[in-house]
């Protein structure tokens, strides 16, 4: 077992080879502690994981993506790149130009040819509309966006009134 050249502990974490002026190679074996004391090399294993490196590189490259935001939900395109999930239906429009090549790569197509939503449906139950507006009202209040909350409240009132007058 090799020993540490400084403290003689039977543990060697790093071997430093130096070549001095006359060309002789001098080997210095150090234990972890002594190496750290001498400030040699990066004895501590770097804590960077492959994922982190990848993420950081991506971040650098896509720094500009941080500034492209969805006008509806506020998701940044960089966020989408990181997590692979869009935030709302509006994201498809907000990121339209950037999304199209991605979608094309996945599906080799950019036009839906399947089932289409029934166009004949005229009346969406007011009950559902009100419930939905209530939910958005709640979250607007939570976010202290009172201006928006007031608008939603008026909308609900309007639906209720038209219902009564029927």
């Amino acid at each position, binding site marked *: 077992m090799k020993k540490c050249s400084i403290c003689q502990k039977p543990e060697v974490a790093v071997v430093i080879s130096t070549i001095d002026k006359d060309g002789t190679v001098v080997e210095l074996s150090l234990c972890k502690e002594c190496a750290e004391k001498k400030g040699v090399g990066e004895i501590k294993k770097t804590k960077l994981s492959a994922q982190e490196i990848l993420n950081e590189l991506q971040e650098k490259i896509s720094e500009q993506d941080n500034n492209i935001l969805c006008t509806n939900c506020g998701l940044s395109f960089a966020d989408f790149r990181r997590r692979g999930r869009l935030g709302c239906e509006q994201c498809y429009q907000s990121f339209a130009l950037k999304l199209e090549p*991605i979608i094309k790569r996945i599906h080799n197509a*950019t036009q*839906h040819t399947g089932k289409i*939503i029934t166009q004949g449906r005229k009346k969406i139950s007011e009950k*559902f509309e009100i419930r*939905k507006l209530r*939910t958005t009202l709640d*979250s607007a209040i939570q976010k202290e966006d009172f201006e928006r909350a007031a608008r939603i409240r008026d909308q609900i009132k309007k639906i209720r009134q038209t219902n009564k007058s029927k």
Partner: protein
Amino acid sequence: MKLSDFSTFDQTTPSWLITNDTTSQIVLSSRVRYARNLAGFPFPNKATNSELAGILDIINMAFKDGERIPEFLNPIEYIAFDKISPLQAEFLVERHLISPDFIHGLKLNAKPQSPNSNLNTGRAVFINEDENVSLMVNEEDHLRFQVLSAGYDFTNGLKMLNALDDGLELILRYANSPQYGFLTSCPSNVGTGLRASVLIHLPGLVLTKEIEKVLRAIWQIGYNVRGFFGEGTETRGHFFQISNTVTLGQSETEIVEGIEKITNQLIGYEEKARDYMLKNTRKELEDKIYRAYAILSSARLIASQEALNLLATVRLGVAMNIITKTSIQRINQLMLLIRPANLQVFYNQEMSALERDEKRASLIHSLLNENSISNQILSPK
């Protein structure tokens, strides 16, 4: 299935595992699912807890309204995620009624709003009595619903799925666009939102070592393959799941037809491999199958993974008429019942790993042979 009361769990088998059809010797089950989102709400990963709760409320109301909901969904069991135990959740995963992501991915999905915000707010699943239809609320998308069919059958499954979709669409307003069709949280589901898959048993191709080639070819033409009853690419018991990756630019029928073409091809290869083994390596094959049967009928302790592997081998033996004491259907049932959460629910008690290995061995011992007396407890509904 009654999940509301843990003590009254039925001991029956889901309808999609019950089949006498000969094509289901190779294809165990077929699945179709749609991903849909409600217009006007952010997708689940960006929604607040109150929005998630609101979405669930609206979907709940749609079911209570009921008129447009197809008959096969009646009666339906509603399970809210903040009310079930991890064991019950795992039970549902093992039965393919919810995705593993639905319980494991909660942390990833949740927004760190406040330390006490409930990760399961607004998450729920609807399951029909036959256990062939389930509908997840607020997984990756607001709605993900599926129809599971026994054996190799997409016709009926897609019909049911569309009936449910049309019924819901009349009540709910789906997020959609003329260009991209149904809008989904991940662009890989956009368009039809349809994922079609088969769960296929390919022991012949595995034993003749042809499987790698075949799977690689499927990858190359743009379909997804993964080992089943296992994580990632690791395969247990020679089961594979084949599914489409493209959801845009093809109609629902075209997507299903694509999977059918590949499945037909795979069935052909698998049959050839089985013929080859019968002609050239019959003794080795019989030995392997009888050994698997022997271990299953005499082991006193058996782990889930070992049991699945051996059952898959015996399944091949039954399909090739080498083993006649049991049936494909019985093996299918056992493959589900011996899984950790299902086993504990079947015996209605929580068990340690060792206790499970013991109960598992004894369950297999008493059920493997179809003619044994203990058969009655597995009567299908």
